[in-house]
């Protein structure tokens, strides 16, 4: 509940950048492993969120 603003912001960013991101990922001229780069970024994001969550709970 307290991070609802963050979620909305993320959705907004995702909405604005998704066409660019998708066309970048699927660009036939680009490297074949581009989807995997996006994938790694998502994993990193999830990882960072988990670390943050852990810290938050340590101060609880």
């Amino acid at each position, binding site marked *: 509940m*307290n991070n609802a603003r963050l979620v909305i912001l993320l959705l907004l960013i995702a909405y604005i950048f998704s066409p660019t991101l998708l066309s970048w990922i*699927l660009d*036939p001229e680009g*490297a074949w*492993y581009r*989807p995997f780069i996006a994938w790694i970024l*998502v994993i*990193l994001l999830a990882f960072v969120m988990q670390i943050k969550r852990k810290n938050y709970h340590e101060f*609880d």
Partner: protein
Amino acid sequence: MNFDLSQVALIGLGYLLLLFGIAYITERGWIPDSITSHPITYILSLGIFASAWAFYGVVDLAFQYGYGALAYYLGTGALFLFAPVALAPLAELARRHQVHSLADLLVFRYHSHAVGALTTLCMLCGILPLMALQIQAIADTMHILTVSANPTLPNDESGITFKAMMALSYCVILALFTISFGANREQHKGLITAMAFESLLKVCALLAIGLLSVFGVFGGLDGLDQWLMDHPENLALLHQPIHTDSAHTLLLVFVATAVTMPHIFHLGLAENPLMRNSHTVTWAFPLFLLLMAIPIFPILWAGADLSVNLPPQYYTLGVPILYSSPGLTLLAFVGGLSAATGAMVVISLALSTMVMNHLLLPSLKLRTKDDLYSQLLWIRRILIAAIFLGGYLFYWILNNQYSLTNLAMTAFIETLQFLPGTFAIVFWSQGSRRGMIIGLSVGTFIWALGLLLPMLTGINSISLGLIDAVIPVGPNYWSEVTLISVGLNTLCFLAFSLLSKKTSDEEYSADLCAADELSHPVRQALDVHSAADFKTRLAKPLGKVTASREVDNALRELKFSINERRPYALRRLRDQIEGNLSSLMGIHLASEIMDKSIPFHTAESRNTVDINLIENRLTQYRDHLTGMAAELNNLRLYHRKTLEELPMAVCSLGRDMEVLMWNRAMANLTRTPSEVVTGSYLEDIPEPWCSLLIDFSRSRETHFYRREIELEGRPHWISLHKAAIEGPIAEGVFDQVMLLEDVTETELLEQELAHSERLASVGRLAAGVAHEIGNPITGIACLAQNLRYESESPEVLDTANQILSQTDRVGRIVQSLVSFSHAGHASKSEFAPVSLRDCASEAIQLLSLQKDKRQVLFANDIPANAIIAGDYQRIIQIFINLLSNARDASPDQGRVMLESNEDENSVTVTVTDEGTGIPPGINR
């Protein structure tokens, strides 16, 4: 390159032995807990998701659909990425209600046995192609390694071929291993560790082949780029198929796998503590999938570059063979074997549980006289063997006609049919059993018609007699079959759920499962009164031995004793036994047995909230609460602490006289700790509190003043006050809160005060009497003096002197009494020099008047020069107190000695007697 059959068989057998050895030594505790309980182990164990199809078949999928193949990973990856939202509620339900399969969960949610049976049946049909896929992959790869020197697949043969024999022996060995190891429900830790090892091996093998493809075949990433530039059709192949409809359907097909595939449910949701406790899975499992996915395209291209003479689905094996690397070839083979084995073992375990719980046990009558466990174990063993046999038969009937992709799609599309019903478990409480059954039946019927039947019989079109139309069916039309079956399934589910009326039981279960659960755990009453009663009750359905063992197990898990009588504890015991039984024989049978043997009284069931259970749950979930809920919980804790630390004894009672709260002061007062009392009925708490509290709670009065009770042989006085609390659910239902006040000290002080008041009035009376006596005595003294002057007779004079001395004595005594009774009125201004010796003598004089008391000898050794400033009468009072105490403590004719020491500023007087001293018991 060609391997000897015995070599390959030996390697395969050795690997299987290693895998089951790991499970075995884990169970033995030879592998440290830090490894077996590590999150990485759990994450890796989830890797059974990637079966032989992910090892071999996905390359074919990539060949057909380019980037669309990644849907296989993305669907599941996304589900795990959002695990706290998407999977955690299911995992929580599974844990709370001891659910071990999707069928159990659906039965629990829809409160219907038919749902369980139908789910199991559909799951069985849907999973057989997946098992056939694993068998086919193993048989094919063994054939490639051993028979064909130039790696090719054999031409279609029929009957019992060499491959069929290898497939059969693989199935038999695996079935034997699974039966000997996995049939026992206790050994899940070993299974998880073994599966983690299996996943680790296959991801390493796949990565190794990927690295071989990039660096061995293409000479590095630059070489690969150059090759792609030279062969642009490969890059086009990557992008082209995404824009077709089927690629989108792929994502749909794979999205549900994590929840609906029985083996993934078994390991991921039912057995895995990770899903509930940690967010590690949100990134670690997608990472695992990424590692599995990255090598796919390089392997595909390496296979194309080397012109492997195999269908793309076996490029993973073909690339190292053509690269002439026996080590990597064997690694690839073992990786594939590993992937297939992991999936097969867990699928057979999960399916055997489902079939046993939902198809066999409800219709089978177990002989309760015999050992129930061994009966169940044997049923499970037979079922595991039957499932392996079923998988093999399916493989044999299909006779290698279909690619791994076809088989996988068939299986995945059927499991997709469970998605609407599963989604509604947590997120849509309107979903009804009728909707679920009809939706699933329709979806499965279309799937069977469109994919399963054509696969088994070879037909490729169905003609509709009436309108003379021919509908093409078969694996090539998987996309259409998916959309139509899932679409109609969802539609039927929605329509029939909204139209049908749900029973109250069903509604209750739906509410229990809902994600925004605001469930009021209702406190239900049991008609059993001790844990031992459970054994007697359960002996009938389960048999004496099993019942006793199950009750003991549950008691041990809850850390309760067999003498437990608290209703709260008995309710928890009932839940625990039901959970344990449901893991033994399925949720439906377990709840049936419990409802029949140890039913809840429903009469007052929905009226009282189980406060203890709510508190218990809140304590468990404390770390999971966020935002407003966490704030509220903190507030609750604060209030609870306030009550707990309140320096007055407080307890609260439910309407049925169950103790709900018992604070620390109450525990101190009653010398009964809260843990022992909370949750018990009032009549079970120790006397004298039991009768006192029962009287008070039944009384119409809201206060009891100074009730006398006996505690540890001494009287105590307790004041009680109470108030009614309106229950949280139903209006007009009142709990009670009671406040107890220990007024023993006040009572004793008051008694003492009354006593001294009585003494004081006696003193005043004595003073009056003394005054009255003084007048006649003075008269007598005057007359005696006159007598001295009126007579010369020595006898008369002597008598007069005697009379005078006696009256003098009487006068002194009277004077002492009068002045003693006036003591207490003196103020500080009347301080005067006082001789302590004289004071002591006066006190001794007064004390010697009490003839009824024990006679002692007072020795006044205080020197005459011990003089202080003080109030004469009060100092006498001090001496009287000291000396009378000393006299009381002394034996008859004992000596009491008075001495004094003085320094510059003070005089210290000591009183020494020959008594025994104060006994240690009173010395408090």
